[in-house]
């Protein structure tokens, strides 16, 4: 089947607006968007710029807009879109470097603000072995921990479009993953960060971010963080509850 791709060409150094280019590609039922881009680059136009990574969507390199939705090019089959014309675009809301390539520097800087590592007062077991965690507690963070930081969620968030300082759903899901981790005890510090001026309260529950390639409910995670902040503000002591639970498991 022949499919038409409409791809913006843009160089931030020289262009004010993008020019659109049309490519025609013969696809099979197995051809992904990334395969099609590779075919374009190999056979038609080697100057088209896009990133590619693991080809399995586990690394988040190839996020882009496909027919109006943010998706991973490597895990989106062309025929699965039921369209013969496909419009591609760079992830919106990020500075475009060139064509489909955007700048992730500020995105990763926000991730770093979230203290994306375990902070805990719980001592390591004396035998040097693992801290214990129940399967239930492990499952609480398992899905959020699969986030590949592709940026599809943050890029889809209208609040992020208008306020570049907003941490955005990806960074907030990262915070959620540690707040929910039974081994982590820096909940107060974490809630202070996500509850700050550029944090969860900027979220207007639009839920575009829950259309995640890894099926992570980012929007729901943000609301869960809001609830935790409020419960702690009115002294329902979730922090204490959590420490007690952890000690009980150990």
């Amino acid at each position: 089947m022949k499919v038409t791709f409409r791809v913006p060409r843009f160089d931030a150094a020289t262009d004010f607006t993008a020019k659109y280019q049309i490519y025609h590609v013969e696809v099979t039922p197995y051809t992904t968007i990334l395969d099609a881009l590779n075919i374009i680059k190999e056979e038609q136009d080697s100057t088209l710029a896009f990133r590619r990574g693991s080809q399995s969507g586990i690394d988040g390199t190839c996020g882009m807009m496909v027919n109006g939705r943010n998706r991973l090019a490597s895990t989106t089959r062309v025929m699965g879109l039921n369209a013969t014309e496909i419009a591609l675009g760079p992830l919106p809301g990020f500075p475009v470097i060139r064509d489909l390539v955007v700048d992730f520097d500020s995105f990763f800087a926000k991730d770093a603000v979230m203290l994306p590592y375990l902070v805990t007062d719980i001592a390591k077991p004396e035998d040097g072995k693992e801290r214990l965690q129940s399967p239930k507690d492990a499952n609480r963070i398992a899905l959020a921990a699969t986030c590949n930081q592709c940026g599809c969620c943050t890029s889809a968030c209208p609040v992020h479009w208008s306020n570049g300082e907003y941490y955005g759903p990806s960074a907030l899901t990262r915070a959620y993953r540690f707040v929910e981790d039974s081994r982590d005890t820096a909940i107060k510090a974490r809630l202070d960060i996500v509850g700050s001026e550029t944090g969860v309260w900027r979220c207007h529950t639009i839920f575009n971010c829950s259309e995640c390639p890894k099926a992570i409910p980012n929007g729901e995670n943000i609301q869960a963080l809001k609830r935790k902040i409020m419960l702690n503000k009115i002294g329902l002591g979730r922090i204490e509850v959590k420490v007690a639970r952890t000690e009980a498991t150990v």
Partner: protein
Amino acid sequence: MIQHDVIVVGSGIAGMRCALEIKRSAPQANVAIVTKQYPVRAASVVERTGIAAALGNSSSDSVEAHISDTLAYGKSNNAAAVKALCELAPAAVYELEHMGLPFSRLKSGRIAQQPAYGHSQPRLANAGDQTGHAIVTTLYGEIVRFGIQVYPEQFMLGLVVDGKNVRGVSVLDIRSSEINIINAKVTVLATGSYGQLYANSADSYASTGDGHAAALRAGINLTGMDLVTFHPLGVANTGLIINERVLADGAHLLNAAEKRFTNELASFDVVAAAINAEIAAGNGVDGHVWLDVRHLPTSQIRERYPHVLDYAEDFAGVNPKHDLIPVKPTQQATLGGLSTDLNGSVAGFEGLYAVGACANNGVHGEQALPGNELAAAVVFAKLAGAAIVAKLGSAVHGNVPSYATSNASDEVEGLFGQKGAHKLGLVRKNLRHAFSSQSTSNEQQVGFVHSLRDQFGQIGLHDKNRRFNTELLEALELDRLLDVADAVAKASVAAL
């Protein structure tokens, strides 16, 4: 010119673990990571199944059993390396847990241990079926915690060598095409595999053997380059691997007539060979066979290998409950690399270390036992980090020869000036198909690589833009892949 005490090239599991070890035990050390991607996008994420360590959480496993399984599977392993790996793997896994890695758990709260092919005991510690990704993300968190500097999207052009001393690396800033020298007392190559040499590969697009080629160009010999292993269950058209555990759980392989044609429980190489033979005999479907998991409970698939559902949907557009999944053998691991001792030190060169998939200390023998690659990446990177710290006191930055910059810029400007008729993409495609094809002999490969090398000299580089020039990047990668291809083909001929 930028200066660091230690520069680590590559932001995968081995590179980050090594940098972390240096920073943790020598906080004053100025260590940085340079990578052609962003760290969380590193190729290590493709390792899904688990990390092998005899924790004994699910059975009375022992280090001795892990050693004997590894030796039996790899056949020609370096016994000292295997001993170090198996003895240190449990502590390495606990350490990852202490860093917060989200391991899957047993009811007891201990780290779960999955059974795997070649292991006499359930031994793979896993984070769902995204273990490599979990390790990468966890280590990246530590990189942030310790404030280790990372230079993303910088392509290593080559090692800076002065006689037998390695002084750092030359890099190309992908965003600007500018060339920089990073001068370091110690240089660590952690550049991963050369899986992109194969058309059907489970590896990332980034796995182009950059470190291997840099070593060859600096006059460093590579060993074991012919040791490339294939997995029978690559999803056709992508090369991504379906966990072989489905076969142990009763999944079937079917030919075009939807009949079983082999014993699915035989060893990897036997099953892969049987699939290739079936396809060659004309009993395949469009160059693949079928994997049948329709009779396995969906709940079991979801629990043990959920990627089967994703892959079937994402890459074949089928529902494994009702449909067959197209599979064919795919390149899984490349074991060749720079010869190192157990500390990652490269003999004959001062100030050079190699860790991870670009290093070869013989631990895997002829094939890597499942889960041992991840274990080796963390265990030996940590040993290398400790050895580097011990050396740093006496190490010096040394002189950077002026030809380091000119060589790098000659290469890049040379490519920008190329106006030949051959297409870069086509040369790359032909190379990868030659190495995946069953019908190309090793001798033919040697000749073929030479003709492709000639063609590469006559490609045209159409993209003259200096900003994020991915055609330039591909050309640089292909140039290196051709060097690696030559080494692989020659090693394969010599091994016959």
